């Protein structure tokens, strides 16, 4: 009963054109809050095709990790390199990290720190039970990171106060909203 339509026919050409035009309109017409396919296509597909050549030049796995995770990759690795045997680092609260980095400081979470490096002698900021074993701290400045210990040039109590201030500062707007 079926007369099979051929691959190429005026009707098939018309339907092909309809499909192509429909798709083209979806990804090309920018109407905010109406056409979500335009920003999606340009943000998720077009951007990769246009940058594929330059991205392909980044060949090492670690460079790609940095390209995606930025400071969340760089800072934990830097800290790990600076550790000495016997060191146990207190990770600062995320709010302290956020004061110095553009991306959210997920590296302050021990799981992410471990993911970016390896299992290490670290203590989460709010881990009060293990706080006593800490002897090393992380100090951030606008363009530098240092791993500091008691007895050095950095006043650790002031640093801990900075950590706490950053937390309080982050909480404040929420409290005001309430």
């Amino acid at each position, binding site marked *: 009963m079926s007369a099979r*339509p051929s691959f190429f026919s005026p009707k*098939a050409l018309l*339907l092909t054109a309809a*499909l192509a035009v429909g*798709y083209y309109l979806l990804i090309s017409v920018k109407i905010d809050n109406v056409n979500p396919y335009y920003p999606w296509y340009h943000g998720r597909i077009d951007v990769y095709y246009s940058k594929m050549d330059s991205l392909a030049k980044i060949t090492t796995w670690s460079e790609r990790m940095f390209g995606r995770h930025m400071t969340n990759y760089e800072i934990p690795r830097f800290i790990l390199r600076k550790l000495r045997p016997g060191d146990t680092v207190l990770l600062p609260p995320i709010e302290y990290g956020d004061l110095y980095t553009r991306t959210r400081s997920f590296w302050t979470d021990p799981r992410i720190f471990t993911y970016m490096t390896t299992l290490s002698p670290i203590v989460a900021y709010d881990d009060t039970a293990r706080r006593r074993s800490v002897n090393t701290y992380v100090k951030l400045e606008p363009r530098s990171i240092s791993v500091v210990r008691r007895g050095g040039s950095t006043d650790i109590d002031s640093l801990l106060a900075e950590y706490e201030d950053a937390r309080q500062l982050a909480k404040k707007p929420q409290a005001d909203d309430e």
Partner: protein
Amino acid sequence: MNDAGLQLFIITFLQFAAGMGILGMCRVTMPRSVAIPTSVILGMFVHSVAFFLASLLGIGVSLTTTTVTAVISAIVVNAPLPLTIPMWKGLLARPTWNVRMYDVMAWTLGAYILFIVVWGTWYWPVTPFDAMAGIDLVARQAIEEGTLNNSIYTHPSLAGRLSNQPYYAPFAMLHQVMTRTMGFAYGQLWLAVASVSFAVFFAAWLRRYVHPFIASATWLLILITPEWLGYQYLLQTDFINAVFVAMGAMFTIEAIRTSSASWLAAAIVLFAGGCWSRTETPIIVGFGLVLVFLPLSKQLGQRTAVLFSAGTVAACSVIFALWHVIWFSVLPVRPDSLTELRIPDVTTFFTVLTDLFTNVLAEIGLWGWIFPLVVLAAIVSLIRHKRLGLTLPWLWMGAIVLGLVLVGSIFSSAVVEQTLRRGIFKLVPLVGLALVTTSYVQQLSDRLMTWEGKRR
């Protein structure tokens, strides 16, 4: 092709072979365009279970384990030769597809998009927080220590810091481990294999119901659904879970529609795969079983409906228990899930339901136009034809929404805008199916058939 690429190719072929064996044992007859991608997806499930069982027996994590478990899965599942050989013979049958120009156009556009999925999974490292704090954290350490039961669970720096992410249902974690053993630094390539397989399956599946032009257009629309495509190269448990659940639902629909019970056996395996990939799936499958019981018993008899329900419950229970009971009893530290449970009440249920609709489903930035479109098609169908069309996809969509809302009501950690948002992935393919099976789109399809010169 480098060594890692060759390994991936060989392992994927072995998984495909295992999947072919499963389909053969299910005695389900399906076109090659459906059988090939379905086999890959089923084989991935079977292989991950075999790999896990090896770990349970104390065999270390290595490329040898990955390869040997793949070989064993393929051989064992294909052992009943009288059942499996016809499936393989079917691959050599003469093609019956009548390819048209617009098919080639749709496939070209789809391939252009899917290439980014493949490239993205290979090129970019893992980025979702949940994956870095959970499944891939465990997977990376498993590679380092050679065992799934590794120091992530016991190291003092993480003691009390692990939430439920490292305990997620294991499909994605196991595939991260296996793909990493092949030499891919970020794992993830398995996600591309699953994504491409599902895209091929879905392209073929929609053509069973509607004119190829409408099928192709719907397929493209689903493929470019922003959130759906994003998680085809972002590592999470949700996309692969959606693939299993949606395919299981589609197979039950097909069984009822064609009065062919053999689809149900394959559906059972797919639902088990769903429970192996996301923890809350048994609840959703349970709702689905209840909702399709009547149409199933009406079409295939009460005995078949009862057997199917019992088989699904048994398979899902076994697979759920394998991880959540047996493996958890092996681990030195178990998740404290009970503290996350709360007694559901009507207010919470309706709050979650309202939030799901207003904050998630209504968000076109996430889902594009697929939800408004299917609602519109349903309304037009009801007004013009006084009937919706095929109701079974809607029953499954109802089961998924009900299941997700119940999960959101019971678990305090299930956030509507995050957990449930990704749970919505299960709806996406079913929305495509619901759309093309509404009576209005079916009428359009018939008209298009006539206009193009082919009668159904």
